[in-house]
């Protein structure tokens, strides 16, 4: 066996034995079904839903275009989110640095490893669109073959292009912004596909089908549109030089692969040349703005220290940010759905003249529901053993929840408030009524603050980042509390829907929210029996 074969075999075995594909799915390595399976399952699910939703509704060309675009986006996101563990591994040099393996051989093994994953994703992304697409009117077995070839090339070309672009930058092992961004794209795409499919069935004006049948000019400039045109040409026998184009597509893919391999070899040479030794291992001190913010948000030293810790963890721990992504992505997806289906109406508008306001209320309710889940996320960390330092620190004022309050404030002021302000801007633009938008967002803010108080004992947030991530830990134990919050948020949504249309009832609703807020704050400071019950619920 050559060094290449040995390396490739060990890389694949390591990957199959130790599953680390948790970033995109939130799955844990200890589960029976491997996390990689959920990634593949997610791709199968998205392509299946989309293929079925579009089946018989649009022609071959737009069908191929949508499926090619979505599969290319998903394969790029898969590679960008995970390639730290597949193609560009900074820790490799510590393991094989002393072994006499040529950099090119190593790069080839890593590249082949990446190709194995790309092929796996390719199969998952191609099965449904190729087979169901072949059943479209005007398609046939030629479609299945042409689509598989085009999608196979696109799903190799775009991820390799992403890696190529990434390797052009100097190696930065801690750089996770891009991965976070792409993971966001992946999750939002899944939600938009899911909700968008529903929209297609509900929209009486068939805007999606019309858009896809008569796409704007900019769409015709997209590479996936060119590929789709080729697929349609082959399927409907309208392309005279389909073989030449197929060869060109294949050649471009192979050339990109060769370039990627070359850049990977350069990359591994760069990290071998002692990049790791030059890099500073010291964590940066909290920025001045973080210190000022913590002084402003907390009165006690315990509160300030937990705020600084939370800010540092938010900056450093990409897993923490990723765990918060699905909740906020749901809000974003619902907002987009509301905009596209014209259901993002003004709840303060009396009468039936405007568009329905259901989604405007649901968006806020979803944000309220996400607060306890996000607070719960702050309980977990990979470095949970270090939490003894915080737990054993001198108490000071603030009671049991002195550290929890710090986390709560960071979440409210740095996550929830910016989201609410953004929502407020969208509402103000959509309704043309900034005052109503401000009031709607203010109602949401009061609910979020109240829920954050109730959530402290319910999630048991005494010492943040003090527990390891365990199977079912994220969702299981706070499920009853989440159900209660969902019910309450839905009820408040209904109340707002009926009370916001008249000034008097709207003021009453605001008063009700204020009472709720005062009650929550009083409960948490006085620790009456209700809090004990919530604690019992948690334990």
């Amino acid at each position, binding site marked *: 066996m050559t060094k290449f074969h040995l390396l490739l075999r060990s890389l*694949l*075995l390591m990957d*199959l*034995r130790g599953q680390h594909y948790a970033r995109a799915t939130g799955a844990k390595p200890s589960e*029976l*079904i*491997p996390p*990689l*399976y959920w990634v*593949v*399952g997610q791709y*199968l699910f998205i392509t*299946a839903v989309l*293929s*079925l939703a579009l*089946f*018989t*509704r*649009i*022609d*071959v060309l737009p069908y191929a275009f949508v499926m090619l675009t979505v599969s290319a986006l998903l394969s790029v996101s898969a590679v960008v989110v995970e390639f730290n563990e597949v193609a560009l591994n900074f820790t490799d040099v510590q393991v094989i640095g002393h072994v006499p393996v040529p950099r090119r051989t190593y790069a080839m093994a890593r590249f082949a490893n990446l190709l194995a994953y790309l092929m*796996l994703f390719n*199969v*998952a992304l191609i*099965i*449904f669109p*190729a*087979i*169901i697409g*072949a*059943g479209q*009117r*005007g398609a046939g077995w030629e479609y299945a073959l042409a689509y598989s070839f085009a999608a196979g090339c696109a799903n190799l070309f775009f991820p390799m292009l992403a890696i190529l672009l990434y390797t052009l930058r100097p190696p930065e092992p801690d750089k996770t912004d891009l991965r976070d961004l792409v993971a966001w794209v992946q999750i939002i795409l899944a939600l938009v596909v899911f909700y968008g499919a529903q929209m297609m*069935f509900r929209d*009486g*004006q*068939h805007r999606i*089908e*019309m858009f896809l*049948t*008569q796409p704007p000019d900019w769409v015709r400039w997209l590479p996936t549109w060119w590929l789709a045109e080729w697929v349609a040409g082959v399927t*409907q026998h*309208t392309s005279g030089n389909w073989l030449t184009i197929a060869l060109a597509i294949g050649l471009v893919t192979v050339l990109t692969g060769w370039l990627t391999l070359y850049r990977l070899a350069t990359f591994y040479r760069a990290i071998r040349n002692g990049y790791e030794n030059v890099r500073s291992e010291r964590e940066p001190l909290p920025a001045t703005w973080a210190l000022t913010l913590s002084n402003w948000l907390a009165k006690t030293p315990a509160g300030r220290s937990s705020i600084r810790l939370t800010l540092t963890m938010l900056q450093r721990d990409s897993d923490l940010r990723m765990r918060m992504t699905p909740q906020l992505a749901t809000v974003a997806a619902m907002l987009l759905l509301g905009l596209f289906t014209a259901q993002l109406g003004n709840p303060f508008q009396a009468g039936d003249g405007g568009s329905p306001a259901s989604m405007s209320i649901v968006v806020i309710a979803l944000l309220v529901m996400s607060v306890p889940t996000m607070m719960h996320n702050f309980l977990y960390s990979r470095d949970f053993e270090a939490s003894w330092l915080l737990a054993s620190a001198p108490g000071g004022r603030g009671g049991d929840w002195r550290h929890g309050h710090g986390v709560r404030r960071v979440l409210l002021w740095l996550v929830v408030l910016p989201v609410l302000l953004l929502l407020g801007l969208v509402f103000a633009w959509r309704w043309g009524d900034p005052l109503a938008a401000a009031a709607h967002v203010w109602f949401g803010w009061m609910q979020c603050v109240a829920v954050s108080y109730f959530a402290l004992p319910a999630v048991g947030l005494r010492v943040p980042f003090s527990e390891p991530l365990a199977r079912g830990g994220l969702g299981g134990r706070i499920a009853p509390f989440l159900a209660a919050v969902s019910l309450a948020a839905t009820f408040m949504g209904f109340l707002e829907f009926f009370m916001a249309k008249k000034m008097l009832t709207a003021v009453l609703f605001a008063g009700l929210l204020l009472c709720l807020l005062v009650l929550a704050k009083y409960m948490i400071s006085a620790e009456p029996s209700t809090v004990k019950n919530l604690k019992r619920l948690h334990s």
Partner: protein
Amino acid sequence: MKTFLKTPRGILFLFAATFFGAAVLASTTVFFRPFFEKYVVEKHAPPTANEEKSLKQPDSPENQTYLKKLPTQQKTRLYEVWMQQPDSFLADIPQRLIRSSPDTLLLRVTQTFVAGSFGQRQRAAVFLARSGDIAAQNLLERERQRATMRGEAELAMFIKQLQIPH
């Protein structure tokens, strides 16, 4: 079985089984195409008495002005009313509607060709053929070609027969 599924071979088996299942599911779906096509249909609200009345008015300068002044939504609504019972109204209604607002109406008819059922697309073709408008005839020809590409020989033939007199 649990132990096997945790081995590399087990994981590969899991993927293979899933892909096989997905392929079977996808192939099964294709056989149910008529079921899916049943749901490709435009939903039109039933016509009101006023709407029916305005489509039964004979052509006159007043009627033309009335049609031109109608909001876009109501013009497309009249098209929907016509689509539900094309033979109940005067034969020149398509011509009058398209003349009142060609772009809006042609876009609306295109929507029927995209999202309508087989019967609705046939009626939309009749609407275009009866309009006598050149842009409408071009659209009709495009739809005939599209029907041919989609393998809908029956619809393509139907449109061709409509095109002969013009």
